[in-house]
């Protein structure tokens, strides 16, 4: 009798089996998870049928609560209930206080990074985000009978800078999620709409969420979503409209100093009032606390009057994005509305008059981003090998280096299509200078102080030369996730320095690894076993990928090269079977990797040549 076959965890038994991948919208106010089933994207719900998971985490000595239950506790336990932490990602305490004023949290530092003191200890925004992501992952696994999630596309505001993107990716790693791609929220929304309608032409995506605003201008053409320009404000959203109402309540009641729990009450009432005003012309807000009771009347007119400066601010970003895209307003065929805050009638009417077009709202603005992310996850995991969908996104904010006098020299301008690599040469300022410190910045302003500082690193060991004689080549690379790495090299000597840009207030790779270790229930052995398993799966993936390539393109190598590569592959297969140490497999993978580099490069060249064969060229 034939034995039944069972596949290794983390890999599918059959090559064409449907692989489980999800799209996650990690929102300021609510988060969602979606997946593609039978060709259709749908959001996954909890036991009670709710798709939206409030992005709220409560930390008590006894445990962690995520979602609706945590929201319930917000007023009684404001300082342990973290709300809208997405706004804190990649930020310093000073920046947070400047942007958001009074908050009911006890900010502190944990190993040089921002954290919030709670009953369950110091919690960083990255950690809180990882708990939200973890809850969504658990929900997805549960709805598929505990099948493993092989990968996820996680959305970020298009206008997120490098520090905020890196923090999001760190959070996903902490939650044990394999990130297939960080995807910009407006691009995700465009995918959800675009694939539905098969539309061609230029579209604008206006995305006003709980804490962030994005505007993206895209060109759709035969399955390609090409972002032409993007703009926005990573700290402008529904929360800011709430805080305008909170200020109005304070003014009307004459109560200006609020305890954390009364502040939370005011914010909750403001949110409810704002939402009600989308349907009613007038709302009476009852504020009851500390044995006092106030009633504040808010008309839609009054609210519009308070809100209009913020809405106008979003329109200025729209104008700039349209200009950056090199088009006129009239060329925009469709405007897509995304994010809960686009339910505000004022927002709709202002956007409509700006683009002179009635905006599209046919897909639920709260779910459209997660649906788009799920569609891309499905393609990336390999469930749709024939899909011709391709997303070409851009860098939202210029990247540069500090030069003499506190000025910023731009290396890669905003709205450059990613991935991108750009190099620039610099020289020494003083005779005999042997080191150079490099300060990497992101932003549009000329002065260092007005831009976001991403990282500082130094290139040491430059041989003493006259001022201006050294040639230091600094290379910026931005990958398809929009994440930056920087390297610097002195050309005559080859002295080199590299940095994976991690913000000074973010997490280092070691910190992430340590947090991962801490979060694992058991000590070294578990970790070791898990890492060994991971390396075995990775080795098999490498072997299978190479064998598949060799089956097609072996003719690109001569006999000796082919024999060498095959020998290395066989060696890796042996090590994979027998090794006890994950590092041994890792080393064998690296060897195969190096042996295959020439092959990989020839294959890429061949496919580039093939892509345009048949194109008529008159005189090359």
């Amino acid at each position, binding site marked *: 009798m034939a034995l039944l076959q069972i596949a290794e965890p983390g890999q599918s038994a059959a090559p064409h089996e449907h692989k489980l991948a999800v799209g996650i919208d990690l929102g300021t106010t609510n988060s969602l998870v979606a997946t593609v089933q039978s060709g259709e994207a749908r959001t996954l719900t909890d036991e009670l049928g709710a798709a939206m998971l409030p992005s709220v985490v409560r930390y008590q000595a006894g445990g962690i609560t995520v979602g609706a239950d945590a929201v319930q506790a917000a007023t009684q336990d404001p300082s342990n209930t973290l709300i809208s932490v997405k706004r804190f990602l990649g930020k310093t305490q000073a920046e947070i206080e400047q942007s958001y004023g009074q908050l009911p949290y006890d900010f502190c530092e944990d190993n040089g990074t921002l954290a919030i003191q709670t009953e369950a200890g110091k919690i960083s925004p990255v950690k809180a985000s990882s708990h939200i992501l973890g809850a969504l992952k658990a929900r997805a696994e549960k709805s598929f009978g505990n099948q493993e999630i092989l990968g996820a596309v996680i959305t970020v505001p298009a206008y997120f800078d490098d520090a905020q993107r890196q923090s999001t990716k760190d959070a996903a790693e902490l939650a044990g999620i394999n990130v297939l791609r960080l995807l910009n929220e407006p691009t995700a929304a465009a995918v959800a709409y675009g694939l539905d309608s098969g539309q061609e032409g230029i579209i604008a995506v206006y995305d006003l969420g709980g804490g962030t605003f994005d505007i993206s201008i895209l060109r759709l053409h035969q399955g390609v979503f090409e972002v032409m320009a993007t703009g926005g404000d990573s700290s402008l959203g529904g929360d800011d409209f709430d805080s305008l109402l909170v200020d109005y309540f304070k003014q009307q009641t004459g109560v200006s100093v609020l305890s954390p729990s009364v502040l939370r009450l005011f914010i909750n009432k403001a949110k409810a009032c704002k939402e009600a005003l989308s349907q009613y012309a007038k709302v009476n807000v009852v504020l009851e606390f500390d044995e006092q009771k106030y009633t504040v009347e808010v008309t839609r007119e009054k609210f519009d009057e308070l809100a209009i400066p913020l809405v106008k601010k979003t329109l200025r970003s729209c104008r700039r994005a349209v200009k950056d895209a090199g088009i006129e307003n009239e060329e925009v065929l469709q405007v897509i509305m995304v994010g809960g805050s686009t339910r505000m009638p004022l927002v709709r009417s202002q956007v409509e008059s700006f683009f002179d077009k009635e905006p599209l709202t046919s897909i639920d603005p709260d779910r459209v981003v997660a649906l788009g992310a799920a569609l891309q996850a499905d393609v990336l995991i390999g469930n749709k090998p024939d899909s011709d969908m391709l997303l070409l996104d851009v860098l939202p904010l210029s990247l540069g280096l500090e030069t003499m006098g506190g000025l910023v020299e731009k290396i890669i301008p905003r709205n450059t299509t990613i991935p991108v690599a*750009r190099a620039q040469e610099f020289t020494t300022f003083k005779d005999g200078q042997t080191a150079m410190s490099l300060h990497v910045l992101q932003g549009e302003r000329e002065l260092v102080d007005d831009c976001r500082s991403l990282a500082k690193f130094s290139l040491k060991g430059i041989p003493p030369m006259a001022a201006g004689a050294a040639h230091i080549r600094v290379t910026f690379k931005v990958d398809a996730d929009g994440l930056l790495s920087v390297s610097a090299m002195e050309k005559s000597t080859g002295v080199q320095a590299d940095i994976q840009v991690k913000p000074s207030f973010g997490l280092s790779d070691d910190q992430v690894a340590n947090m991962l270790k801490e979060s694992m229930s058991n000590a070294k052995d578990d970790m070791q076993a898990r890492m060994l398993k991971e390396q075995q799966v990775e080795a098999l993936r490498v072997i299978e990928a190479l064998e598949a390539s060799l089956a097609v393109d072996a003719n690109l190598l001569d006999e000796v090269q082919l024999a060498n590569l095959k020998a290395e592959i066989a060696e890796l297969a042996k090590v994979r079977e027998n090794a006890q140490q994950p590092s041994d497999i890792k080393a064998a993978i690296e060897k195969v*990797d190096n042996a295959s580099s020439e092959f990989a490069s020839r294959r890429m060249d061949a496919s*580039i040549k*093939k*892509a345009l064969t048949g194109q008529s*060229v008159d005189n*090359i």
Partner: protein
Amino acid sequence: MRYFELFAVPVDYNIDLATINKHYLELQRTVHPDRHANASARDKLMAVQSAAEINDALQTLKHPVKRAEYMLSELGVDIRAEQQTLQDPMFLMQQMELREELEELSSASDPDTAIANFEKQIKQLNEQYSAQLAEQLASNNEQQYQLAADNIRKLKFVYKLRDELERIEDSLFDD
């Protein structure tokens, strides 16, 4: 002329942008990292590099100054990293006057009109200096290449003015 070859278009300063864009998308469909999401680490890295190179090639060919500099460097005259300044007092004088005018734009009584007028001047200069470039770059003549180099240097000044103007417009938007 690698970049022209890459996009399968003839080597000519006057480019056919529509064809380049079309071929660009076809190339990205082949090399983009999303198309290699399940490949080995080496193939993924290769995909990122190739996609970045193709993006860079497109940016270079699309931008009138970068395209000219690139073509000239392929012809053996590389002025992309030069430190030397332009020796044309008349031109430099004109540039200084334009800079002064630029600085006064934001305080003009009607900034919108002032900006529009300035934009027109820049456009004229742009046309003036780029008019002969196509011929010069196709001339196969060293002396013509040097004239092209001078035109490119002047164009760079014009584009700097344009960038500055954009910055000023942006700051007016932000008020």
